[in-house]
């Protein structure tokens, strides 16, 4: 990696602390990813991206800013990336996946807040995430009470704009969300000085849709038995989607898919065909949260899908054909975003249907329901998910955890027992 210290200093990072964070990553990444058997060659690009995690991409963002562009931070799949791109700004998913930043957050936030919220907040107050530092402002959303109130506090440290996501999938909810999109459009235009025209938006949506389509293709390749890519690698690709350049990323994922489809045609896989196939469903997993996948795959299972915001919820809904006017496109984007079957909605039975569809279509032997501790929405939905799966005879294991390593032994214990149970 090139020397980015002057850039990091310019961004106001706490260099000493940031060194500790970056120092820990290569060893961890090597132990988890590079030791996997039979990895697709196409993963080399993603290894490179992680190697440059706070380097090259941040440099690209800084260059974009130097030429007058804006950078917009976000945390959630409800924030439409295409609207940001249409304003000539770059959307970037912010760091939120490690225990490292949690102690900084706990100096301010209540301890019994979910790890994702604490980690993201801690990165800002501890000045250890170059992405949030590089962002001109961040867009929050109201997808849970913890985040909603955290954004109020985050606003004291960084420009923060919050858009409302409705709680019910009703015509009224859609109207509200559409109005929020209009408000966000105005905000983006004000910040960037760029007018979002129908042409600009159509172009941006095409880029985002191509990215989503590439991720869906990857997701579909994982239907094969044996599976051509590990769950860890597939998860990593989705995680990188949140902050990489949209065009380059789409190319690299497409190339990876070519390779994977070749493997499928030849019947090649990363694990034996008999390896238990697991669907992970629940809370999102931000980089570098690889804890559950690592335990599952270390124990001999393969993860074949993530019903999650770092999985199907990120790339499944597609924009419907529309009349191409600005209003028509915005409505189509609103509909696409509201097709995200997140536990923030009530009721949210479509998510149960998604889990059942994935369990069947991806030939799943068992589902692991993952909730971050204090993520009440997903923890509660686990009850319904488990019942619906039981009727189909698909076993479910509930895991509730955070980012720390202290419960690795207990989780491994349950995972081992679960895999003994589902092994055919």
């Amino acid at each position, binding site marked *: 990696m090139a020397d980015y210290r002057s850039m990091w200093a310019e961004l106001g990072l706490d260099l000493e602390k940031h060194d500790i964070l970056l120092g820990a990553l290569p060893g961890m990444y090597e132990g988890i990813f590079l030791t996997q058997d039979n990895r697709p060659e196409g993963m080399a690009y993603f290894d490179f991206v992680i190697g440059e995690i706070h380097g090259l991409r941040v440099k690209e963002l800084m260059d974009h800013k130097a030429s007058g562009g804006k950078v917009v931070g976000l945390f959630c799949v409800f924030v439409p990336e295409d609207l940001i791109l249409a304003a000539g700004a770059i959307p970037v998913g912010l760091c939120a996946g490690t225990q490292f930043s949690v102690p900084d957050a706990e100096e301010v936030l209540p301890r019994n807040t979910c790890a994702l919220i604490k980690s993201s907040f801690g990165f800002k107050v501890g000045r250890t995430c170059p992405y949030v530092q590089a962002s001109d402002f961040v867009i929050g959303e109201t997808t849970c009470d913890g985040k909603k109130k955290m954004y109020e506090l985050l606003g004291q440290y960084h420009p923060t704009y919050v858009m409302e996501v409705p709680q019910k999938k009703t015509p009224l909810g859609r109207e509200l969300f559409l109005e929020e999109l209009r408000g966000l459009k105005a905000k983006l235009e004000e910040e960037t000085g760029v007018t979002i025209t129908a042409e600009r938006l159509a172009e941006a949506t095409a880029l985002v849709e191509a990215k989503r389509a590439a991720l869906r293709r990857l997701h579909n390749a994982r239907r094969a038995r044996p599976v051509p890519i590990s769950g860890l690698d597939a998860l990593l690709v989705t995680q990188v989607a949140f902050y990489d350049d949209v065009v380059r990323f789409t190319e690299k994922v497409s190339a990876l898919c070519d390779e994977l489809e070749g493997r499928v045609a030849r019947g090649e896989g990363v694990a034996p065909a008999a390896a238990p196939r697991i669907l992970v469903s629940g809370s999102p997993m931000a980089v570098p949260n690889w804890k559950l996948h690592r335990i599952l795959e270390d124990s001999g299972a393969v993860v074949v899908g993530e019903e999650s915001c770092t999985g199907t919820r990120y790339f499944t809904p597609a924009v419907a054909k529309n009349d191409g006017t600005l209003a028509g496109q915005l409505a189509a984007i609103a509909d696409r975003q509201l097709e995200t079957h997140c536990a923030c909605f009530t009721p949210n039975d479509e998510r149960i249907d998604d889990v059942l569809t994935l369990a069947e279509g991806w030939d799943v032997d068992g589902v692991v329901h993952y909730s971050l501790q204090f993520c009440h929405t997903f923890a509660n939905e686990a009850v319904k998910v488990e019942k619906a799966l039981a009727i189909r005879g698909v076993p479910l294991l509930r895991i509730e955890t955070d980012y720390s390593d*202290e419960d690795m*032994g*207990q989780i491994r*214990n349950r995972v*081992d*027992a679960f895999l*003994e*149970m589902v092994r055919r």
Partner: protein
Amino acid sequence: MTYAGLDIGSRTIVLVEFDEGLKDYAILDTGPNPIQRCQQLLDGKTYRGLVATGYGRHLAATAFAHEAISEIKAYAVGARYLYPDCRTVIDVGGQDCKAALLSEDGNVRKFEMNDRCAAGTGRFLEVMARALELSIGELGDHALSATRMTPVNSLCTVFAESEVVSLIARGEDSRTIALGLHDAIATRIAGMVRRVGPRERVVFAGGGALNACLGRLLSQKIGLELTVPEQPQIVGALGAALVARAR
């Protein structure tokens, strides 16, 4: 033709030897170096098959065992050997507790385990026995001799210990406190057991099953009879030995 099962738990290590039937067993404290302790235990012995279970199972599988199985499976296999009609296993061990529902043919259908917290485990009872200046072996009978109960509200081992200290300071009878402590964790364990939808016969095993008060309260709370094996601590190692034989 001897097979062995080794259950390396957080508090004890159990070795079971099995040929035509249960041949012998040994129970040792785990201590700071469980693998070394196992090696001492196994010194000079050879088995046709050796399967490990418990927290140290993966380490053991790397060092000397032929295979590692989860405690859920080990307890299920062990309990079914002792009671072929067993459909539910409850295991209260040193640092965790578990409940498993078995199918008619003995396969694990559903299980629940406590999370990282020590509530509802043997560790909880150990800490409370110490707070009441009793040995772990005395605690259950002490509680059973109570004529009424002092409710204990905390399930957290750390908070419950301070609660016990303040109850003692308030002049509460240590027997009634002991009963309250048992009631608190029996409630917790019963909740977990209900989640698997328990069916008879219910076998209660693990070190916690040596405590008669816990067994009685648990049975009341789930509304089912519990069967406690003669040596409840060895059920996991026995299951591992049986898996070694079946390999």
